[in-house]
């Protein structure tokens, strides 16, 4: 894929009180940044689970950003610290299976720091382009299209025992 054709899809797991507010401000101020992020809004990044990150990559995300409050400023006191540890652990899990840990990053962006949000998205976009598309992306797109076409629900992986 040439650089022109490859538009990275970046999953952003962000907290309501800080990063989402910053992103909102960036939008209001018409700050320009690549339209590559898909935002999932959490009340607090402390709720981000390692599985959410892995499922993001399984679904074909080229990169995942987790962004919470600045250290010491978490609205729920320590959620961003937990997220930081979990992101580090998830990076190890990715390296184990041969997926570049650079595709995942933790950010701490305060509510008034719209320029940092803009910077973070630009940085992750560049990184995703550099690392190339997620090897699973094509397959994930095919599976999703098939599920829609056949009006079938996505495969259920957990047995109800």
């Amino acid at each position, binding site marked *: 894929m040439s650089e022109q054709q490859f538009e990275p899809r970046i999953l952003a797991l962000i907290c309501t009180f800080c990063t989402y507010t910053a992103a909102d401000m960036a939008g209001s101020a018409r700050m320009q940044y690549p339209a590559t992020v898909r935002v999932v809004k959490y009340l607090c990044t402390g709720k981000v689970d390692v599985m959410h990150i*892995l499922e993001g*990559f399984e679904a074909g995300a080229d990169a995942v950003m987790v962004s919470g409050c600045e250290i010491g400023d978490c609205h729920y006191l320590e959620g961003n610290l937990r997220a930081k540890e979990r992101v580090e652990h998830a990076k190890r899990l990715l390296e184990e299976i*041969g997926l570049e840990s650079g595709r995942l990053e933790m950010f701490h962006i305060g509510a008034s720091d719209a320029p940092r949000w803009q910077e973070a998205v630009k940085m992750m976009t560049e990184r995703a382009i550099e690392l190339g598309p997620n090897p699973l992306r094509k397959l994930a797109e095919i599976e999703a299209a098939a599920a829609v076409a056949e009006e079938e629900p996505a495969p259920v992986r957990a047995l109800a*025992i």
Partner: protein
Amino acid sequence: MIVAERKPFEEIKAMLSGYPRVLVVGCGTCVAVCLAGGEKEVGVLGAQLRIAAKMAGNGVQIDETTLERQCDREFMEPLAKDIGRYDALLSTACGAGVQLLAELYDDKPVFPALNTNFIGVAEGPGVWTERCRACSDCVLGLTGGICPVTTCSKGLLNGPCGGAVAGRCEVDPERPCAWGRIYDRLEATGRLDELAAVQPPKRHNIHVQPAQIVHLAYKRRYGL
């Protein structure tokens, strides 16, 4: 409890090659507590296996389920109705659970995702140390609750070997001298005179492999 650790990912991946439909069977007891094979770890391992397989272009189906535990048959019997859909089982239980699962579903290959290490306790979140060797001849009442079998490098039963340097074991300087600790604890509780009695050698012969225990109340049921 039993403490185990997940095998290296590459080893697990290699075990499963050639099996297109795999069920990862978790255990909710000891291995869940030591963060090796519980529901969470099964979810993570399943996701890792699926991502790795897809990266390699292999079509695999990796499903997950976690049972209360795998050392009692009744928790594994409900699997029977779905087991036909899979070519292999990957168990994240300890060695005992893997064996019982394999016995119950003996027509399917069953692979262990963990290495079972020891009987131990949690020292703090994420740290477990060996405490018990299951020697079948417990002397903890005589040593102030400190096991000379697991904590003394030489497994001595009647006091220190005398080789300790600054309270550290001469065999493994990382460890404190077990008998130093035993002495200190008995001294602190005024029970030093209990050490005067000489303990006979450990009865290793009472621990037969594979060991089996039949509860007194059940002996008649099994004709014993």
